[in-house]
Structures are given as structure tokens and as C-alpha cells.
């Protein structure tokens, strides 16, 4: 094997140049605009007025009462906490549902694995909005589940399924499951089959083998999947908007509303930064755990 070809300094600049321009223009600049906007005053017709203000951050925790004094309001912190909880629940459910799927696919003959992986990605082929709408058809009072249960005589009154936290969680799990399955599959697929046989040879039944060999070796895949699910789930707004019925907002809905109907860009920007901070905190915690954990690649 030969090592990677060496590039001269100017060669490196030339190769990376276009990417740096794109990232700079379309990622860094907008990202810098967010904190700037968050420290300005809202323009009631949209946009911001270029006056310095911390109003947006005050608004996150406090509201003015009729005398003009600030009193603590937990409405927004609760939305943040609910978002974190729902994203964590989504991640856990995706892991529970996704790991067995990934394991089974990885154990299939190579020729069949490709088809199964394709099937995992089938939901991506249609629009997310439409896919989430179809869950309304399934979950609503006259939906598939309630009608089915009623017809079977299990229930008399329709169950309250739509517009609950549960409905949001279902929608999120459905949306993000493939992001869990694919990295775990990749990790398990790389595990030497000989290790599985060795575990069996050393008196481990299937369960013990999974626990002591497959699970630890799949950990990098599980970590990647958890991040890929948790991060977008935390900021998602379609599932809570459609399946939460506006009563169960998540952070994403709140932000989206600020740039839409509420016309409060600074507040939306402030919430975005809080979301960013939450994601970074979780990622750092993960990285920390992995570094101190026993497993090393």
C-alpha cells in the first residue's frame, strides 16, 4: 500500500477553496447573524431594528405583569424541557426498535442486505409532511386504530391518540428510525463473525453473546445513531405541529413561529441559540463519556 499522495500548500488551498467559500457564505455567515439578531429589537412587521437589546433573553424566562414588573414565567423553559424529554424518548425508542433491525439485516447474506437497507430508506422517498399527515389518518378519533378497535369491540369511545405527547413521539420515532438503523448496521456488519462463533464456543448462548460481544462492539454505531436521532428530533417542528395539535409545542415550533406569525426575530434567534447550546452540551457529554468509558477502538 502506498501512503496518501502529498499535496503542496497551494494545492491544498486550491482543493479546499471552493468548499471553504461555500461553508463560509452559507453556514458561518448565517450562523453569525443569529446571535447578532438575538441582541436587537423586534420589528413588529418582521425583521429587526438595529438597536441593542437583551429583551429577547429576558423574554425566555420572564414576562411583564400589568404594573410593568418582571415575573418568572415557566412557559418557555417547559417547552425546552419537553423538547429535551421527547428527543431523549425518541432516541431511546429508536434504539430499542432499531438495534434488532440492524442486527438482523447485518446477519443476512450479503445479497439480501442491500435490498433490506433500501427498504429501510423507503420512507425518505416521499415528503416528510405527507408522511406525518398520514399518521393523522392513523391516530385520529375516526382513524385506523380507533375504528379498528371499535369494530373489534375492544373499545366503545375512541381513544385520545392524536394531539398528545405520545403522538409526537410516534411521529419522531417514525421519522428518525433509519438514522439509528444505518449506523448500527454498519457497526455490526463490521464485526468479525468469528467473534460471534468464538463466543458460542466459549459457552455464551445467543443472549450472552449479544450482550458481551455484539453490543459492546456496536457501541460506536449506537453513539452515532443516538446523535443522528437526538439532534434533529430536538429541533423538529413538523411532527409536533401536526401530531401535537399546537398544544404540545416543541422548541422548533416556537422558533418557527417567531419568524412567522409572531414576527419576533430576536426571540426566535435567542431560542435557536439555546437549542444550539443544548445540543452542544449533549454532544460534549457524550464525547466525555466515550473518552472515559472502557471501550477503545
Amino acid at each position, binding site marked *: 500500500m502506498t501512503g496518501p499522495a502529498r499535496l503542496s500548500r497551494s494545492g491544498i488551498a486550491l482543493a479546499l477553496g471552493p468548499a471553504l467559500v461555500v461553508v463560509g457564505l452559507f453556514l458561518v455567515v448565517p450562523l453569525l447573524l443569529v446571535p447578532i439578531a438575538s441582541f436587537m429589537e423586534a420589528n413588529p412587521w418582521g425583521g429587526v431594528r438595529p438597536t441593542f437589546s437583551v429583551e429577547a433573553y429576558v423574554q425566555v424566562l420572564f414576562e411583564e405583569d400589568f404594573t410593568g414588573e418582571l415575573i418568572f414565567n415557566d412557559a418557555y423553559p417547559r417547552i425546552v424541557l419537553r423538547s429535551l424529554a421527547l428527543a431523549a424518548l425518541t432516541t431511546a425508542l429508536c434504539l430499542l426498535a432499531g438495534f434488532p433491525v440492524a442486527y438482523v439485516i447485518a446477519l443476512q447474506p450479503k445479497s439480501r442486505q442491500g435490498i433490506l437497507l433500501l427498504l429501510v430508506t423507503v420512507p425518505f422517498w416521499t415528503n416528510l409532511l405527507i408522511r406525518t399527515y398520514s399518521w393523522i389518518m392513523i391516530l385520529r378519533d375516526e382513524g385506523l386504530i380507533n375504528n379498528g378497535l371499535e369494530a373489534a369491540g375492544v373499545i366503545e369511545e375512541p381513544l385520545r391518540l392524536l394531539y398528545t405527547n405520545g403522538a409526537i413521539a410516534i411521529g419522531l420515532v417514525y421519522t428518525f428510525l433509519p438514522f439509528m438503523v444505518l449506523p448500527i448496521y454498519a457497526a455490526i456488519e463490521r464485526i468479525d463473525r468469528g467473534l460471534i462463533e*468464538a463466543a458460542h464456543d466459549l459457552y455464551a448462548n445467543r443472549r450472552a453473546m449479544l450482550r458481551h460481544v455484539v453490543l459492546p462492539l456496536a457501541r460506536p454505531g449506537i453513539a452515532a445513531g443516538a446523535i443522528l436521532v437526538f439532534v434533529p428530533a430536538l429541533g423538529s417542528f413538523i411532527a409536533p405541529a401536526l401530531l401535537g395539535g399546537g398544544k404540545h409545542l416543541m422548541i422548533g415550533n416556537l422558533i418557527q413561529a417567531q419568524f412567522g406569525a409572531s414576527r419576533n426575530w430576536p426571540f426566535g434567534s435567542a431560542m435557536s441559540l439555546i437549542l444550539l447550546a443544548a445540543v452542544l452540551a449533549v454532544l460534549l457529554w457524550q464525547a466525555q463519556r466515550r473518552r472515559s468509558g472502557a471501550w477503545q477502538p
Partner: protein
Amino acid sequence: MTGERASPAGTVSGAGLVIRRVTKVFDAAGSQAVRAVDDLSLEIGENEFFTLLGPSGCGKTTLLRMIAGLEQPTSGEVLLDGDPLQGLPPYRRPINTVFQSYALFPHMSVGENVAFGLKMRGLDSAVIARKVEEVLALVRLEGLAERRPAQLSGGQQQRVALARALANEPKILLLDEPLSALDLKLRKQMRLELKRLQKATGITFIFVTHDQEEALIMSDRVAVLSEGRVLQLGPPEEIYQRPRSRFVADFIGDTNIILGRPKDAERLVLGGTAELRFAAPVLPSDGQDQALSVAIRPESCRLVNGAAYDDLANVFEGRVREIEYLGADTCVLLDVEALGASITVRLRNTEGAAVPPQEGETVRVSLPAAALWVLEP
């Protein structure tokens, strides 16, 4: 429940491993089915160092995997101490494997690797700790228990694999070419260590190799396999000195092979008028016109000068085609017209031994009658 636990050693008749008419056919979709093991029967006694020797693809690994329970026979059965192993998953068999690729768990330390089987059997952690230490000492890896497999040399990894299997004190240890990845020096050292371990532990070793030297050095008995069948079975001396077929003779050591037709029970006619005498009436005298292959090892051939010799010396003239110096030995390749064959003579390079002939020289070679044997057609 079939006997997965050890029964008192050597009490029951039929103790040990019995492989009875086992066949394994792999049906690869699209291509032809492969008969990896073909109606094979073997009996392997307790405490035996048994070697399966054969060329690549002859079914050695497949046979081991069926004994371990990692593969199911297409037909036939495997019995341990009289009990069929059929249907028993690998984790219920008192059999452990040292895999060709070692298959060490990369996410566990050496100590954890060695403890794995004991832990799975639910042994007490103090007992496990003691056992791990003991076994690591046995394979001379003391002090490396904390390392990861990736931090070990190939030879050390191989010994961890061995320790991991030995720790369980299985009734049978299966070793699939465990030395093939090692360099020559380490391989030689490990051969002796394996032999020592086998004697020390009293565990039956079933050892797979395609290295004939390895098989001869270590084994109590050797089975030579080809195309999923046993061609010859016996102690190393017998396999080496009297290989029954041309395949075995060629596979184990170098062999001179001479073709001829029997004249009577003690004489073989070669080409023209030359005759090869045997020390005993060993030739089939009925089928007169049947061509036979006769074999002799290069080290049994001798170069003779004017010295006196009798009929049984079978002396012929030959021209030296090639000289090969091997250090301890010198090989002389002769074209012997009377035999219609080339004969290799292996000479010891001892102090004061006769100077080997030069290329192109004409010499006399003796094929002592007692060293000749007839190969099966």
C-alpha cells in the same frame, strides 16, 4: 440431557470422540454443491494428540466445525463418550476451539478474554481469577493480563487464544492451524509447548495442519485427508515410513517413485531387463501385467563405490543431474536409465563423510530392498 459434563475419565467403553460416517455438503446457490467432508469415520481416544493433515480445501476446518457444533453434518453422527452431540449447540459442548484467526475479543483485555468461558459458565469470580492466572502462566503470558489483544504480537495473541480455550478444561481442544501465522522460530517453539501442554493437561487435542513436519513432530496419530476422506491413519512413523498411496507419499516428505511390473512375488521388472529385488514376497503375483508403483525415501538410498554388495542392494548406475546443498544434508538428483526414473539421494553431511559427487559424474546408487515398499494403485 445428553452428557455435556465430564464423566469419569476412561471408564466407559467408547470413551472419546467417535465420528461415524459424517458427510457435509455445502449447497452454494447457483454453483455446484461441494462435498467438503465425505462419509468420514474416525475414532479419537482420550488424551490423544490427534492431527488432521491435508492440503488446502480438503475439509479439515469443516470437520472441526462439525465437532465444535458450529456446523451441522448433512448426514452421519458425532458421538462424545457414547452420547450423540447432534442438536447440542456449541455452547453446550465440552469442546473448545483455538480458531485459525484467533478470534480474540478486541474490546476485552487478555485477562477478560481468558476469563470469558469461565464467566459464561457462571463460575465464582475468585475461582475465575485464580484460573486465569494459572492458565496465563501455563502459556507463559504472566503479566500481560491487562493488555488488549491489539497490543500483543502474533505469537502472544496465539497463546492468548490457546489460554482462553484451555482455561475451560474442555474434554476436547480443537486447534485449527494455530501456528500458521507464526514465524519459523516461534512455530518450532510453540510445537514443543503445545505438546507439553497436551501432556500436562491430559486434554484430547485435535490439531489441524497442512504442514507435514508439524504433524509428524507433535502427534500421537495422524489422519491424512484428501477431498473430505481419510486416506491413511496411523502413528507418525508409520505414516512417514510406509505411506500407502502415492498421494500420501508425495504429501509427506520427499519420495522416489519407481514404476514396474511384478515378475514374481519378490522381483519387479523395470523397463528393459533391470530388476528390483524385494526382501520379502510382497508383490501381487496374480495380475502379471499390472503396473505397480514402488517407493523409497531419499535418505534410504545410498551411493556405493566399488564396495561389495549383494542382490538385495539393488545397485544401478546413474548420472548426477543436480546437487542441492541443504546444510545438514545434501540432496543428489540422479537420472537412472535402468529405472526410467530420477532418483533423489539424501546424504548426511557428517564430519568425514564422503565428498558428494560432481554434476555430470556417473555414480552407483543402491536402493536397499528392505527400504522399498509398494504403493496402492
